[in-house]
């Protein structure tokens, strides 16, 4: 395998998933055995990382040209969602990823029915949701603050939705007990929410939502209030639960790793727009804009002008000299472009080979993070960042301060960004 395709962030995340899978195997398995009504597609209960799944062609949720603006006291309009158009497929784990204020939570609230779009439509399960209030929508929400009812016990919180539907007696009891078992809070049924820890409350919020077997589960940054370790564990549990239940999940987060690890597809949002939508790999390997390139992981951005385009790729004139990329579709000679390359795809070398696509650089600073060394490099007055895996930091791959190195930029890893 070419070293350039290595992605330390993703690999590290996946290792943790396999590790954590040991804890959750039992949890997902128990649910499957006991409940024949809610059964997802048949598969092993061990978390499978992000192996590609067959997604249904049917849309669970369609968002059509949704526009939403807030008016301030002076009557001034601030658009928060502009022309959002997307299809979320049945059984999909779909993430809305973006920085705070990008509109992701507003979009989720429009799906839940807490807010109305100014124009456009939302279709859930084939039905137009325009004018349908929150309490009649086939969705349930896990709130960022959990919003547990403080006067009700855990069991009564979980039973709340079923009671509204008129479910009573033994059926109610069984379903509540099963949901509480599923999220592993069986011992806490009689407690009040304020007697629980953050992680336990999160589980109650989840149980309270899934017990209703909604068509779509909306999750508004449900893990953001938890500490890192618990968050990692619950990421796995959530992903497993989603596979087991087969419910469509729409997951709002600002944590790129969370989105990469859990989602089938991700929509990266910025300033009310969807910047890019696709599978995790697509977004990471082929970011379309500088925003995506830097919001998902980090990137070196190199401005340049296209010199020539051939069927094998394009040659781009930059401050570092001509750089070759394998991309060529839609490019024209003379066009101003920005090239993006991930820090872990830069190859640092001592000896000058003459395969081209090389930049002379000086090591300015070194950050040791354990799993990798991060080199801050200076080349022609510009900053470049390169990551070297710890495994490679050995006798001759260890670079020193102020050392002159040759940086190799593999043409396949140089992505041409859309300007704008």
């Amino acid at each position, binding site marked *: 395998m070419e070293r350039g395709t290595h992605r330390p962030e993703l690999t590290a995340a996946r290792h943790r998933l396999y590790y954590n899978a040991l804890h959750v195997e039992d949890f997902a398995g128990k649910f499957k055995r006991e409940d024949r009504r809610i059964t997802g597609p048949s598969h092993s209960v061990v978390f499978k990382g992000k192996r590609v799944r067959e997604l249904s062609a049917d849309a669970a949720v369609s968002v059509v040209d949704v526009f939403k603006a807030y008016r301030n006291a002076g009557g001034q309009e601030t658009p928060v969602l502009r022309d959002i158009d997307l299809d979320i497929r049945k059984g999909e784990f779909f993430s809305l990823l973006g920085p705070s204020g990008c509109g992701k939570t507003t979009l989720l609230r429009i799906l*839940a*029915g*807490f807010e109305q779009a100014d124009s456009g439509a939302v279709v859930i399960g084939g039905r137009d949701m325009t004018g349908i*209030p*929150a*309490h*009649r929508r086939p*969705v*349930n*929400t896990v*709130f960022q*603050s959990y*919003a*547990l*009812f*403080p*006067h009700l016990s855990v069991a009564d919180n979980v039973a*709340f*939705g079923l009671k*509204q*539907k008129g479910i009573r007696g033994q059926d109610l009891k069984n379903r509540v007990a099963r949901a509480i078992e599923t999220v592993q809070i069986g011992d806490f049924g009689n407690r009040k*929410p*304020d007697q629980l820890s953050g992680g336990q409350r999160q589980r109650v919020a989840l149980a*309270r*939502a899934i017990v*209703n077997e909604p068509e779509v589960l909306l999750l508004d940054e449900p893990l953001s209030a938890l500490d890192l370790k618990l968050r990692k564990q619950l990421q796995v549990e959530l992903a497993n639960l989603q596979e087991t239940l087969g419910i469509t999940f729409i997951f709002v987060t600002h944590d790129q790793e969370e989105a990469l690890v859990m989602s089938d597809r991700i929509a990266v949002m910025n300033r009310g727009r969807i910047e890019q939508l696709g599978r995790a790999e697509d977004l990471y390997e082929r970011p379309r804009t500088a925003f995506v390139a830097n919001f998902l992981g980090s990137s070196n951005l190199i401005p340049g002008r296209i010199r020539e385009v051939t069927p094998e790729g394009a040659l781009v004139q930059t401050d570092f000299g001509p750089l070759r990329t394998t991309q060529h579709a839609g490019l024209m000679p003379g066009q101003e472009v920005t090239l993006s390359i991930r820090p872990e795809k830069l190859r640092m070398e001592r000896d000058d080979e003459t395969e081209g696509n090389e930049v002379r650089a000086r090591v300015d600073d070194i950050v040791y993070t354990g799993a990798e060394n991060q080199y801050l490099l200076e080349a022609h007055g510009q900053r470049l960042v390169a990551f070297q895996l710890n495994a490679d930091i050995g006798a001759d791959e260890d670079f020193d301060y102020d050392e002159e190195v040759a940086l190799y930029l593999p043409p396949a890893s140089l992505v041409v960004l859309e300007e704008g």
Partner: protein
Amino acid sequence: MNRRTHPALTVWAWLTYAFLYLPILVLIVFSFNESKFGANWTGFTTHWYSVLFARQDVREAVSHTLEVAVLSTLVSTVLGTLVGFGLWRGGFRGRVPLTFLLVMPIVIPDVVMGVMLLMFYAIVRGLLERTGWTFENGFWTVMLAHVSFQISYVALTVRSRLAGYGRELEEAAADLGATPVQSFLQVVLPLALPGVLGGALLAFTLSLDDFVVTYFTSGSGFRTLPVLIYTAVKKGVTPDINALSTLLVLFTVVMIVLANLLSRPRKEQV
């Protein structure tokens, strides 16, 4: 850190309490005084309490007071709770001016309130003249006058009780299929209940104790306890009135303590 209070401050605090409570203590003590007149202590007796209960006008005033208090409290608790809920919920223009308007009946001097209501009833009576229907000042005018200031207290108590809860509780209820009415009855009301009860007790107490507004709106034939005490005292302070006042004070204290216990801010959630 040295958190010990300076002795002078302690003395000052006790003086303040003495200033506040000595008159009440004197009142209570002298309601048990054998002597019919003045400030000489001649011996202990509960005689004045039996005299009190034998008086027909006192019995009548007690029943008037309780009738007004109970009905006005019921009305103002229902209305005030809805106002408090609305203020907590927000989402409409004019929330700030409305809150301000709610505080008005609390800060307006009672006398002004009394004069205002007296005039208001007179105007309404004038307007009703043509219809041939009229009313006398009495139970209903007093009861409605009490409601007009009680609402504020109930609304503010309910609002402050709900203040710690986020609006997403209502959203969560709706999300789980509850209609707005179900959400109010199953989520908001149970959470607000201590505030509702506390506000109701406060309103009840205010109605029991009110003199000024009642005096202006009660007309001639209708007397509540505070009005009775006032008219009695005009003829001179007698021990049975001391006894009546003592009972009123004790009853009020019990009510206030209960109201405080109920509307205490809820424990901070982690």
